C-alpha cells in the first residue's frame, strides 16, 4: 500500500485511519471532536481531507477513514481549506467567543460575521457524552438529532447516575461544561443547567474536601475484582500518602533527634 500525503510518500499499514497516519508522520490535521482514548465519531467534520484512491479526489473525514489501498491524500489543499473555513464559520455561530475556534478561524481566514449568531455554546462534538459512557456514569448523552442535538441527561433532569468524575468538563473543547466544588458539593453544569450534584467527602485527617461521595459498587465492578477492598474513603490522597510515609519511616528507620523539634 502506497500512501502519498501532501506529495510525500508516508509509511502506513492497512486499516489505519488517515488521521493516525498523518499524526505518525508529523502532518497536522486540526480536530475538535477527536480524542485518542475514544472511538472516532466524525462529528465536527473539521478533519476533512481530500483523498484520491484512483477514482478522483473526494472529501472524507480523516479521523474515521481507514486507508486500505493506494491513495493520495491532500490535507491542506485549497478545497480542504475552503471546507474547513466554512465549518469553522458555522461552528462559531453556535459558539461565540470560543478562543479555540477564533484561533482556528485566524488560521483559515474565517469570516465570523458571515452568518448570524445562534449561540448555543456547544459545537455538538459529543466528546462529553462519549467520555461519560466510557469512564463516567453513563450520564450524559446527545438527545435529538441533526442541528437540534443537545447534551442532556436522561429526561433533562439532574442525574442520579453521575459519579462526578468531571471527565466531561475536562474534555469539552469549548468549556461549556463546568465543574464547581463549593459548599461541600460538586455540581456539573451543562450550558448553565445542573446535570448533577454530588456531596463531597471530607478528609477525616485534614478536613479538606477531596472527592465525590459515591456508591462505589459499579466502580469496583468495573475495576474487575470484587476482592479488592474499596479505596479508603475517609482520607484524602495527600493525607493517605503522608500517613503511609510516616508509618514507613517509623518502621524502617531509627528515630533520631533533629534538634529542632517543635
Amino acid at each position, binding site marked *: 500500500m502506497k500512501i502519498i500525503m501532501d506529495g510525500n510518500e508516508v509509511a502506513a499499514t492497512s486499516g489505519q485511519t488517515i488521521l493516525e497516519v498523518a499524526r505518525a508522520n508529523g502532518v497536522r490535521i486540526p480536530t475538535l471532536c477527536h480524542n485518542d482514548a475514544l472511538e472516532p465519531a466524525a462529528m465536527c467534520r473539521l478533519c476533512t481531507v481530500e483523498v484520491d484512491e484512483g477514482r478522483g479526489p473526494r472529501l472524507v473525514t480523516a479521523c474515521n477513514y481507514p486507508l486500505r489501498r493506494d491513495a493520495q491524500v491532500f490535507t491542506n489543499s485549497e478545497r480542504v481549506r475552503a471546507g474547513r473555513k466554512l465549518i469553522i464559520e458555522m461552528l462559531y455561530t453556535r459558539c461565540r467567543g470560543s478562543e479555540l475556534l477564533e484561533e482556528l478561524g485566524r488560521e483559515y481566514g474565517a469570516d465570523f460575521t458571515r452568518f448570524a449568531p445562534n449561540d448555543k455554546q456547544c459545537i455538538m462534538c459529543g466528546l462529553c457524552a462519549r467520555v461519560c459512557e466510557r469512564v463516567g456514569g*453513563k*450520564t450524559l448523552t*446527545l*438527545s*435529538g438529532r441533526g442541528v437540534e442535538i443537545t447534551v*442532556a441527561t*436522561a*429526561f433533562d433532569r439532574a*442525574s442520579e*447516575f453521575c459519579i462526578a468524575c468531571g471527565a466531561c468538563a475536562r474534555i469539552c473543547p469549548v468549556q461549556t461544561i463546568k465543574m464547581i466544588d463549593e459548599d461541600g458539593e460538586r455540581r456539573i453544569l451543562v450550558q448553565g443547567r445542573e446535570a448533577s450534584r454530588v456531596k463531597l467527602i471530607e478528609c477525616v485527617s485534614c478536613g479538606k474536601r477531596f472527592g465525590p461521595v459515591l456508591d462505589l459498587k459499579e466502580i469496583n465492578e468495573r475495576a474487575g475484582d470484587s476482592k479488592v477492598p474499596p479505596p479508603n474513603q475517609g482520607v484524602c490522597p495527600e493525607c493517605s500518602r503522608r500517613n503511609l510515609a510516616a508509618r514507613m519511616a517509623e518502621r524502617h528507620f531509627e528515630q533520631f533527634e533533629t534538634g529542632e523539634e517543635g
Partner: protein
Amino acid sequence: MAASEPATEIICQEPEVDFMLLDRIINEDFGGNRETMIMMMQAIQHEYRFLPEPALRYLSQSIGVPLTKIYEVATFYASFSLIPKGKHILQICTGTACHLRGSHRMVEHMIEKMSVSPGGTTEDMKLTLEVVNCVGACAVAPVVVEDEKYYPKADISTLDKFIERINAE
C-alpha cells in the same frame, strides 16, 4: 373534570405503568434481548401511546442498558414520544413528494381547524397532529396516516371527514 376536584388531578394524567405487561413485552415477546430494545420501545409506545418514564426505567433495569442510552434513542427517532399523545394520531407526510403536492396546506388546515400545533395535542387529549418526513408511499402523495391507517392522495376533505369522526365520538 369538575372544577371542585383538586388540582392534582391534572398532573396525574400519565397512565399507571403495568409492570406485568412490561415484563411480558420485554421477556416473553422479545426474550429480554437487548438488541431488540427499539422493538420493545415500540411495543411500549403502542400500549401507552407514548413512552412513560417509569416504563423506560424498568426497561433499563431489565435489559441492562443505561437509561441515558434509552433516552438518546427515544429522542433520536421522531416516532418515539416522551410526552403523552392524544387518543387519535394524525400524521401528515411532508416529505419531498408530499410537500410538492401541497401537504403543507393540509398541515395549515389542521392547525386552523383544531388549533393544534405540529407535534402538539389538543387540550381534550383527543388528537395529536404529527408532521412526519416520509412514510414511504411517495407514489401516492400526499399521504396522511390516521391511527396507523394510510390514506393515499389525501386532501382537505379527507381531513374534514377525520375531524368529523373524532368530534362525533
